[in-house]
């Protein structure tokens, strides 16, 4: 049997029969090399030119997670904008996969964070920068505290009411409720004083003090000719304004049927914590003006006066 050209070999070609570089891509027909003709592990990375494997050469679903070494995919192998939300499953990115400080403002789109995106209590003061909450970030409507009071961190701070700027005359920065112990000033109308009752309550709102007083004398209190004075108001009255009067809530017959035609006026002088008793003609209402025995002389007084602060 004669041959034209080179006589074919009877034995199969081995790689040692093929010189280096003799088989080029141009000598391999399209589709000539199929996967069945490539031995397992025959293609190593050394046999793949740089940039030789493009996305067009990888079949859909050909690369599965098991085919990617741990840490094989790093940031340098992912093109800009290559990963969109459709490329990861819901819940696949948890906090363990986000480095500390990796999410900065630049990575959060405008309006992207709503209240549904953070859990209750997750934003504490440590996560809010100084001066980060301004009035512009508060709603334009009323403000409601769901279950608590407004507490100032510094005493003597308050609220400017009815104005839109810090005007001293509109500042309400003091409120206090409490008790005090009213008493008759010893020697002023009475001597050897004892009591059946001494009760005083006050409410201070700004510079106004409202008081309610009950004093009932005990037995064997003697009278004298000096003006009766009730001591013990809870605050000193103003120096800046004239004194003012308090009112009777109740007096018993010992005052009503006194030597005076009318029950006394009650005067709180400026710079004072005392209530002075005057007759309506301006003279002193003294202990001697009380009718009969002083035992159980019972007076109830209420009213307001002004302080300087």
């Amino acid at each position, binding site marked *: 049997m004669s041959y034209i050209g080179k006589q074919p070999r009877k034995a199969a070609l081995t790689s040692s029969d093929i010189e280096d570089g003799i088989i080029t891509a141009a000598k391999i027909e399209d589709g000539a090399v199929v996967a069945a003709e490539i031995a397992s592990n025959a293609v190593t990375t050394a046999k793949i030119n740089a940039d030789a494997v493009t996305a067009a050469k990888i079949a859909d679903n050909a690369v599965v997670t098991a085919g990617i070494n741990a840490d094989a995919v790093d940031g340098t192998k992912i093109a800009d904008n290559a990963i969109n939300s459709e490329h990861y499953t819901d819940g696949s990115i948890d906090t363990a996969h986000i480095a500390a400080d990796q999410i900065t403002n630049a990575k959060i789109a405008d309006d992207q964070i709503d209240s549904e995106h953070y859990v209750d209590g997750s934003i504490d003061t440590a996560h809010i920068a100084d001066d980060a909450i301004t009035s512009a970030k508060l709603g334009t409507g009323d403000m409601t505290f769901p279950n608590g009071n407004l507490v100032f961190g510094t005493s003597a701070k308050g609220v400017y009411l009815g104005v839109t700027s810090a005007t001293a005359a509109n500042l309400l920065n003091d409120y*206090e*409720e*409490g*008790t*005090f*112990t009213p008493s008759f*000033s010893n*020697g002023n109308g009475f001597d050897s004083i004892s009591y059946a009752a001494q009760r005083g309550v*006050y409410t201070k709102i700004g510079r106004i003090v409202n008081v309610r007083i009950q004093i009932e004398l005990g037995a064997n209190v003697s009278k004298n000719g*000096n*003006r009766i004075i009730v001591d*013990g*108001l*809870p*605050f*000193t009255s103003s*120096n800046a304004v004239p004194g003012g009067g308090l009112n009777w809530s109740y007096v018993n017959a010992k005052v009503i049927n006194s030597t005076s035609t009318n029950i006394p006026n009650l005067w709180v*002088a400026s*710079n*004072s*914590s005392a209530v*002075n008793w005057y007759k309506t003609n*301006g003279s*002193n209402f003294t202990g001697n003006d009380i009718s009969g025995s002083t035992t159980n002389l019972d007076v109830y007084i209420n009213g307001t006066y002004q*302080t*300087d*602060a």
Partner: protein
Amino acid sequence: MAITKETQIGKIEVVGKYKSVQVRTDTVVMEDSEELSRKYHRHVLEPGTLDSDENLVATDISGEAAEVQAVCNGVWTDAVKLAWKNKLIADKG
């Protein structure tokens, strides 16, 4: 769990040209370290009163807390006492 009640000097305020000393005594009820309630009681101390001869009788502050006594003794100078005495005489009318 222990409930305790104690009184504290809550405020000492010096007011006015006659240096009245306003004292607020706080009564505080505590359960361990938690404050359950706080009530206020006030009184005012002035430099003195007049006797029948219009002499100023100094206010007895011996029963006051040491810190209150210190404030009173500090602000009630002779000049303040004299001014206060003159005011009381003027108020007698």
